Each structure stands twice: as structure tokens, then as C-alpha cells.
């Protein structure tokens, strides 16, 4: 890849890193380190196809790779994690706040969903994709994607009943 393309790639990654990491975090049910691994893996794959899809839809490509990698990694039992002597990131004082508590509740609730349902819900409500686009990203029929999303939302209604109050 030439320098101009490499510069475009770096700019894309710098601009979209935060959003991709949040998407991966939702897809993994709040596992930050696994989310970073997935984003890295997806961006490495994007690097090799960047000259072909840089002018088209690189974010859609990364999203598809990310969702499928998340579904694949959810089937694994061991993530290649090894114990270390020092924890890489210590919690800061601001973590204990209402916003973080709300996010933690959401991530815990998402983590209790099956991977396909979680991906369908995240793509439908966070990425704001249509049902057909969700089906394309998941690689399944439209009815199956619709079913995954509906079941996932129904389960989240139960889990997040105290966080999201129903309208009276």
C-alpha cells in the first residue's frame, strides 16, 4: 500500500476507533479487552483490503468483520488470556458514577443474551440498521434476524425493567 493509502487508513482508524471500540464492547457484553482484540483483528483485516474498499464502505466492512468475529469468539471457551502480575488498567475515581453504573447494567444485560441476539439488538438499535441490513451483516435470513432482534429485546425488557421505566 502506498503512503497516501496508508495515511487514509490511519486517518480512518483514528476517527472511528472510539465508535468501533464501543460497538465491540456492546457486542461482547462489556468485555473491554476482548473488544479491543476484536477491533484490532478487524482493522488488521481491513488493512489488507483497504486499497479495494477505501472508496466504498470501509466502516460497513469493519462492522461485518467485527460482528462475525464476536459471534465466533463467543463460542470459544478460552480467549488466550494469561495471568499477569500487574493489572494493566487501574480503576479511576470517576468510574463510580451514575453513568458508569447505567452502562454497567446495560453491558451486564447484554452479556446475558446469546451472541446472535445480542448482535442483532446492537446492530438494530445502536447502529440503527434496518432488519435487512442486520440480516446481511449476520449472514442469516431476514426472518431469523428479525427473530433474534425480537427475542433479544424481549429479554432486555425483563433485565432492564428497573433501568428503563415503562411509560405509564
Amino acid at each position, binding site marked *: 500500500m502506498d503512503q497516501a493509502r496508508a495515511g487514509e487508513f490511519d486517518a480512518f482508524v483514528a476517527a472511528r476507533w472510539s465508535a468501533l*471500540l464501543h460497538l465491540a464492547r456492546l457486542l461482547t457484553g462489556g468485555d473491554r479487552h476482548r473488544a479491543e482484540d476484536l477491533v484490532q483483528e478487524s482493522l488488521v483485516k481491513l488493512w489488507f483490503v483497504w486499497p479495494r474498499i477505501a472508496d466504498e464502505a470501509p466502516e460497513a466492512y469493519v462492522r461485518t468483520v467485527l460482528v462475525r468475529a464476536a459471534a465466533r469468539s463467543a463460542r470459544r471457551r478460552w480467549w488466550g488470556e494469561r495471568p499477569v502480575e500487574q493489572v494493566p488498567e487501574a480503576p479511576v475515581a470517576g468510574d463510580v458514577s451514575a453513568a458508569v453504573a447505567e452502562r454497567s447494567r*446495560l453491558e451486564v444485560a447484554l452479556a446475558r443474551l446469546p451472541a446472535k441476539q445480542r448482535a442483532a439488538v446492537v446492530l438494530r438499535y445502536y447502529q440503527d440498521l434496518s432488519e435487512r441490513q442486520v440480516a446481511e451483516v449476520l449472514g442469516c435470513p431476514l426472518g431469523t434476524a428479525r427473530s433474534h432482534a425480537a427475542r433479544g429485546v424481549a429479554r432486555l425488557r425483563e433485565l432492564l425493567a428497573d433501568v428503563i421505566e415503562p411509560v405509564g
Partner: protein
Amino acid sequence: MDHFEQQLARLMRDTEQYSPFGPGHRDRLRAGVLARRRVRLAQKAVGSVLAVAGLSLGLFLIPDTAPRTEPGAPPPRPASSPPHSSPGATPSPTTSATVSPSGPTPTYSVPPTGSDDPYGSDDPLGSADPYGSASSPGTASPGGAESPTHTDDSGGETHPDRPESESPAGIPTP
């Protein structure tokens, strides 16, 4: 989209935390790209080696199974003469069935050089073959005037007898 779904979408967006793409992430991404590039190169190398090995194995096995037909080879005959029993026995199967007794003269005078003659070039014992020994000076001289005289002499002595003696009785001779 009902109220819960709207609140769910808002919750997913509002909980996004800005995290910059730092140098540590960049280094890790580059290391991942290099590692994947090495893996791809290794896969290509292994694939090339396997392809060459398979091709070599195929080329090694195929000639043993299929008979090779050469363009200048004589057509198979039901019965052939012993190849080196007589000095002029080698070219006789081609001329015996196709050329009349008056015909062998132009047939044997066609190859002026020994290198183009498949019989002369395949015969390792060139000194025992009178055609090989006669054609060797012919190859040195570009004129080719000697070859018709040699072939006329030898062809006149040997060829009219061979088709009758060597061809089987069942094959009609022209």
C-alpha cells in the same frame, strides 16, 4: 419503535465513552499487520511448494501410465523385424509397407543430415549402421551430393528383398 426500544437506543448511544487511538494501539495494530503478512507469506510459500510437488508427482506418474507417441515414430506393426540384426534393418518397416520396390530411392534420399534422421540419431552404435556412417560425411558437407549415391547403392541392394521377407503374409504389400 416503542418507548423501551427508544430508551434502549439512547442508552446504547449515551454510554459511549470516548477513547482515543493512542500510540500503543497503533503499535499493536502494526504488529498485527506484520504478523498477518508473515502468515500470508508463509501460506503462499507452502501453497507454492505443495503445488510444485503435486505437479512434479503428476508429471512423474503420468508418463508411466500413458504410452508416449512421438510424431516421427513409425506406426506400430503387427510384426517387426529384429532391430539390429542386419545393417539396413532399422528403416525397413517404414518403407516395406508403403513404398514400392522402385520407390525407396526418394524415401532414403530425403534426409540429407544425420541430425534430422530419427533413426540415425537414436542409434547409439553409429559405426555399425551404414546409413549413419554414410550420412556423417554428408552432414559435414553442405552439398548433399553424396547421400543420393549412398542411398541408391544401399537401397538398391537391400530394400527390394526386405518387404517380401519381413512383412507377414496377411498384410498386403502395395
